[in-house]
């Protein structure tokens, strides 16, 4: 299949990067960008293909992170198993949130608000519950062994997160090609019409939410293994929910590679802004916000969509006036 081949080519190209002798700083930048991309890939399944804009994907990221950390620290569970259970936990939280919201028929703004509230409830709970280490947070013991899912070299971490991203890309592509994916897009385009045609919209959205939650949770699991620390703000902070939706929207909402491109661009711009202003806080996020508004204003289908539009303009200059709807 053409799409899968493209994913493997991109994956292979990215896998070579650490062998080119790049600095640890660059590698660290790429690891964080890939982690953001992964969180965004989760969001993209539900938001991009399903049209359900969640403002609370931190709920899944944080749950994955906390389960991975707490199982290792408090119950001595092996890191690999904890990692897997973290993903399962994210899927479970998604199932609960999705089951409640979609069953009561919440759509659009209401859905966005209720997901936001769920993430906030989890954040406040995690900041007081003893099991999460409350306000202090949870520190994972440094143990640089493959069995503990910790590596000496940054490159190994890089390949781990890259593998996760590639798996998520393949999952996205398979969904896109499947009957389920077509139903999901039908729900996005016109939910009432889809229901009229016999699509079980509630079940479709529910399943998309579970897959979405699992993928975003896996980014949280990786976060813990990489930084070895988690607290309520890092896990469930509003900013994680915003980044999860920012990357696919900037890259190209409802496209396979959108979140990856979006994450690289957004992180790159953020780094650039910080380099220009030194230590001053805030300016990189101002850049994020401006890019978000500009993309929605001028390229509502993101960079991928903008590229396709631009290419079709080049091919058929006669359609200039028609394509331009600014």
């Amino acid at each position, binding site marked *: 299949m053409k799409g899968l081949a493209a994913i493997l080519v991109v994956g292979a190209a990215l896998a070579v990067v650490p062998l080119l002798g790049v600095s640890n700083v660059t590698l660290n930048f790429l690891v964080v960008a890939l982690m953001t991309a992964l969180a965004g890939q989760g969001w993209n399944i539900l938001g991009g293909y399903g049209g359900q804009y969640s403002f609370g994907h931190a709920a899944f990221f944080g749950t994955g992170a906390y389960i991975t950390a707490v199982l290792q620290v408090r119950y001595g569970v092996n890191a690999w198993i904890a990692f897997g259970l973290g993903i399962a936990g994210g899927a479970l939280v998604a199932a609960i949130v999705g089951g409640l919201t979609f069953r009561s028929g919440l759509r*659009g703004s*209401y859905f966005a608000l*209720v997901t936001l509230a769920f993430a906030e*409830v989890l954040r406040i709970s995690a900041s007081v519950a003893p099991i999460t280490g409350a306000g202090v947070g949870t520190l994972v013991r440094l143990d640089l062994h493959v069995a503990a899912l910790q590596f000496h070299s940054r490159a190994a971490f890089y390949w781990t997160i890259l593998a996760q991203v590639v798996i998520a890309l393949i999952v996205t592509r398979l969904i896109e090609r499947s009957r389920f994916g077509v139903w999901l897009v039908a729900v996005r385009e016109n939910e009432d019409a889809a229901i009229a045609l016999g699509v079980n919209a509630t079940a479709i959205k529910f399943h998309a939410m579970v897959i979405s939650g699992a993928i975003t949770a896996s980014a949280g699991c990786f976060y813990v293994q990489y930084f070895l620390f988690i607290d309520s703000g890092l896990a469930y902070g509003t900013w994680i929910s915003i980044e999860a939706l920012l990357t696919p929207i900037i890259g190209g909402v409802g496209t396979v590679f959108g979140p990856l491109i979006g994450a690289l661009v957004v992180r790159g711009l953020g780094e650039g802004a910080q380099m220009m202003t030194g230590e001053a*806080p*805030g300016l990189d996020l101002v850049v*994020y*916000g*401006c890019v978000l508004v500009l993309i929605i204003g001028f390229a509502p289908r993101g960079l991928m969509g903008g590229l396709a539009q631009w290419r079709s303009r080049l091919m058929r200059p006669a359609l200039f006036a028609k394509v331009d709807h600014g």
Partner: protein
Amino acid sequence: MLSPSILIAAIVNGLLTGAVYALVALGLTLIYGVLHIINFAHGALLTAAMFAAYFTYRVLGIDPYLAAFLLAPVFFVIGYGLQRFVIGPASHGDDRNILLVTLGLAVIIENALLFAFRADTRTIDLPYAFSGLDLGFAFLPWPRLIGFGAVFVVAPVLWLIMAVTDTGRAIRAVAKEKLGAELAGIDVAHIYAVTFGLGTACVAIAACLLIPSYYVNPSAGNAFVLVAFTIVVLGGMGSVPGALIGGLVIGVVESLSSLFFGESLGQIGIFILFIIVLLVRPSGLFGARA
């Protein structure tokens, strides 16, 4: 156990806080009721207005309560401009895009403030900030009493604007039937912007009433915005009396649940109430249309 006087004090305190919540929610519900959008930039605009009130006091020496008369028109213009020249054109009329554009604006405003003023928390000391009314079982500082009183002035004024003036009629017409209003010759883009401006002016007034008894830092408004969403949902999206009653109810709920469960769990109470209302009765407890 709890004596009744502590309970009454908590309720009175909750009502005073709730009144300010209501004021923030008034702007939000007005914007929702007409434009049918959720304005995620509301909290950031509140923070910006609090900074404006802070600096008019610090630099110009204008009392915050007088500054309200200055800042409300200024923020009306800001809100008008934002809707007319940024949110409206950038969102292409798609609901999901509006959510994202207002979110983007929130990120920009909040972090621009962070960049300009750093994360420092600032307060102003008014000479009368700590005097107030002593009821024996509860002490009510003047700034909070004034805030309480002000909401009962602002809400009726807002209601009068909507009920009596031509602009108010146009706003209601657009809210009910956008296409019909447009056919009748109403400039919909202008009315949208006026509504957004009115909502933003409410935020400016709320900021001026808050600043004497509260602090300001670049994320100060966020504490209010989720609460304001809750009030708007509870009171019925778009309903002015709903926002007023919802605000007071939420203030009391928060105050009582902090009393019983402690400060941070008190906040959870609000969100859980919010989730339950959304799941069970998204049209709000006071029954306005969804």
